[in-house]
């Protein structure tokens, strides 16, 4: 990260300072550390939005810069959430169980503790055995490593198979969609060992932490902001160099780049895996704020929405992805939260809870047709006008 990189990309600096101001502002106004103007639930919403912005940046890298429309990145996001969720759930349950068992007459044996944890976690889905995939759930360090490793390895294997056999374009989109559908169906099964449809819950209660949620929510908010900042920096750096030129070349004309002697597949695989890892981290920060993760989170629709956010914000520019995500997800929660006033038309009352999705779908069609650069395109327009008036 030399000076010339920042100098070449003034938007990075602007974005990072805006993010810092925003974080500071929310902290000052929050219930946990400040005057209490921003409620804890809104801090959580904002923190989650930052995580969504992070995965949107990853999406922009793979789609906007490399031209691969992945409709499966929420699979990696979800896997990241599951990995951290396993530790949170195991550790919280272990503390409860050990506390309860130590009140018995005989001191508990390790086998008893293990069986009781299993019964607590899997009792609701009618089992008490620990599946193999929970083998390292007792270690925070290993589970944190899995947050990156599991999505990374899945992306590596899937990408290697797909890119090797030259699956491209819409075929790849459909295949990635099949991947996330397959993962969600797998997780829905009780046999997956991750509590089926119930998923992992109570994730907002950090084991061993007595601080109130108003404070914990801010910790996660900061962590999300930090992750977003670092992710933005990393991706901006990646796309600014020669690597960035090559992947843009792949986007614009894959065959030509191949004929120039670049190993297109390796580049694609590298980007696919990197974005999967970023998505995993975003998920691992998101779900402790949401409190629960279950298979519905990785259903294909989520990944399509991700593409929608990026497209609305304007793909091929990182701040566009961030703006699109923040805008659509916050507006969406405003409309569906029942806060938007109904519009009475006399013969019919428009309730936004009912009509918001229609509006979203249509506006999406319009943006694709008439404003392919999305909201980010406005900045170009402003820039151009300023240049014209300046000259």
């Amino acid at each position, binding site marked *: 990260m030399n000076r010339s990189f920042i100098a070449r990309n003034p938007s990075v600096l602007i974005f990072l300072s805006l993010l810092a101001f925003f974080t500071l502002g929310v902290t000052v106004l929050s219930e946990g550390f400040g005057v209490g103007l921003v409620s804890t639930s809104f801090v959580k919403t904002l923190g989650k939005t930052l995580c969504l912005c992070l995965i949107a940046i990853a999406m922009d890298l793979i789609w906007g810069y490399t031209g691969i*429309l992945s409709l499966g990145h929420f699979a990696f996001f979800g896997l990241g959430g599951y990995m951290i969720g396993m530790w949170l759930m195991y550790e919280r349950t272990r503390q409860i169980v050990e506390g309860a068992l130590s009140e018995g*007459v*005989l*001191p*508990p*044996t*390790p*086998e008893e503790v293990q069986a009781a944890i299993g019964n607590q976690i899997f009792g609701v889905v009618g089992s008490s055995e620990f599946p193999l995939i929970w083998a390292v759930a007792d270690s925070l360090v290993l589970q944190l490593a899995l947050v990156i490793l599991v999505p990374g390895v899945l992306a590596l294997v*899937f990408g290697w*198979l*797909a890119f*090797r*056999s*030259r*699956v*491209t*374009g*819409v*075929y790849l*989109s*459909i*295949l990635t*969609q*099949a*991947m996330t*559908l*397959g993962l969600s*169906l*797998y997780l*829905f*099964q009780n*046999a997956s060992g991750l509590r089926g449809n119930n998923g992992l819950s109570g994730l907002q209660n950090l084991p061993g932490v007595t601080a109130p949620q108003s404070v914990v929510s801010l910790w996660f908010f900061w962590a999300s902001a930090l992750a977003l900042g670092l992710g933005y920096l990393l991706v901006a750096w990646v796309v600014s160099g020669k690597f960035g030129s090559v992947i843009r070349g792949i986007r614009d004309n894959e065959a030509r780049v191949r004929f120039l002697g670049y190993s297109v597949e390796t580049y694609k695989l590298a980007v696919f895996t990197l974005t999967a890892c970023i998505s995993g981290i975003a998920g691992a920060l998101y779900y402790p704020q949401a409190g629960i993760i279950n298979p519905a989170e990785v259903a*294909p*629709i989520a990944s*399509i929405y991700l*593409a*929608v956010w990026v*497209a609305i914000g304007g793909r091929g520019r990182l701040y566009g992805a961030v703006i699109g995500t923040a805008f659509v997800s916050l507006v969406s929660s405003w409309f569906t939260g029942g806060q938007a006033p109904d519009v009475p038309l006399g013969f019919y009352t428009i309730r936004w809870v*009912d*009509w918001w*999705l*229609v509006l*979203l*779908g*249509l*506006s*999406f*069609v319009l943006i*694709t*047709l008439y404003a*392919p650069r999305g909201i980010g395109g406005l900045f170009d327009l402003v820039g151009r006008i300023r240049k014209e008036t300046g000259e």
Partner: protein
Amino acid sequence: MKNLLFAVLALLMMSHVVSAQPLTVQDVLQSQRELIEKSSRRTIGPAIDALVDSGLPQMQTVLELWQAKEIWQRKADGLFFTATKNDDGSYTLRDFEDGAEVGTAPSTDLKQLKPNSGVRAMIATALVQFQLSDPDVTKRRDALDSIARDPGPDLLAPLRAAIPDEADPDILARKTRLERLMTMAYDNDAEARVAAINDMSGDLGVDFRATLNPILSTKLVAAPAGAPPDGNIAAELSPGGDALSYSGAYALLVAEDLVPVQISADARDAALEANIEGGRVGGFPVAQLNTEAARDQAYGVLVDQGLAAPMVTPKDVEASLAAYRFFQVYDEPSAEVTEAAEAALAASEGRVAVGQAVDLGLDALSLMSIYFLAAIGLAVTFGVMGVINMAHGEFIMMGAYTGYVVQLFVPNHTASILIAVPVAFAVTFAAGVALERLVVRWLYHRPLETLLATFGVSIALQQLAKNIFGTQARPLTAPAWLDGAWVINDVVAISYIRIAIFILALLFLALFLFIMKRTRLGLETRAVTQNPRMAASMGINPDRVNMLTFGLGSGIAGIAGVAIGLFAKVTSEMGSDYIVQSFMTVVVGGVGNIWGTLAGAAMIGGFQKGVEWLNPSNTLAAQTYMIIFIIIFIQFRPRGIIALKGRAAGD
């Protein structure tokens, strides 16, 4: 039970003898009032017997009324009547003797007798003897149904008596079959039973196997080594085999008090807790008992001190098991009957396995036709034109809702379906043309954006459907002639609606081939697909062709929607259930070729049924494995099963 009953009856009769009045239906019912009011299968038997044994001529009618929930009880005096409902909600009560009107009563004064289906089945069994030779064919059928559901030794004689006079050939065949089955189960003569079994050996019917299996029921018996048990021995089992585990065998010995109980971990811990003295157990400080080994040791000390029962070691178990032999003994004493039954069942089972395979094949064929039907519209828009239409599923949904709306206006189910099919085609054709004109045609060179734009259309349409029709599933009812199933035998059957869908799929295949190969539109479509500029210079209007082709694909989706709605459900989300699967069908099969789509549907449907067969308790797994399979399959044949060759295959 019966004796008691007769005593009650006799008493009842006597009271009437005294009052010198003939016994009425009401008297009999009142004598059983408590049981009838309680109306439980466990207790109702005596009451039904009493009614039948009264010998009153009206009893058949009374039992039939009772079975049909047409008897009411007046709350005030507890008397029973049959009743008809009047327009003002009150009931006209009628007596059982002669059907005379007794008066009217508001519904609040009456209590309807509602025998549950267990009680109704018992009434039906009691009615069998009246109905077996009833002039009414339906009643004879009811009687046979009742026997088939709940056969009993008492019914064999009346059934046999009812065979010679039977005129209806169908009913005669059923009577004869039932008689054979009941002979196997209940006849006193072993030879007659063996003969009946041999007669029907290899039969596929569930009822046949349901008769044989109880004859072959066994129980597990442990006997000291060297002394085999009495009775009709089926087999000897050795512990540790598939049929009998070591722990199962030991548990059997424990149950018969032949060996000591194994000490469980819980029992051990309870013993330890009971013997804590001054913070120590058997000399060990309690705090140290935090491993299994330490607890075992401490328990050992307790055993040595005589404070607890000794542990049963694996060696003890082995020794105990060696001292006994284990046998399966038939409940049926006659060896010749069980031998014949074994042989007959083995003959059946071979054929049942074949039948099940055929049935699974039919299921798979049906699933294939559904996938094919859902995907065929996509084969046009995606396969031929290369347009990704994520709203395809919503066109299917539109077609289904069209069917529902048509059915609201045309109550006749046959007519409504015949109308719904062309209307659905028209509606979705129009929707398809509109989508093509307004959205798709601006994006022909940006396929990824087509995908996203049509996805926007998809969520908007889905929500619109919710706003209009609500989230509740809507009924789309098939005409009566599509109800029921084509039953080849008790193992192989397929519902008519699935056959209709299969035929519809074939028709579409033919239609598609006809349009593509034999009509001008098909020719032009193929020309535009291969080289739009060249086609345009030959005088073809590519805009028009694209529009019509897209409309055609959408229209077919609409008809598919009607078909899918008929056999499954009509909801706003039904389209999204099929969209991913449909795309995979087209991709796996090979884009641009209808035979490829067919092959794709066949492979996906067949594979899914295959997995379901291997793992019958989890349908979800079948879908997961199918997707993994598809992902791997695409690696090896990225262009699908039937890949286009040459220039047409270009990216």
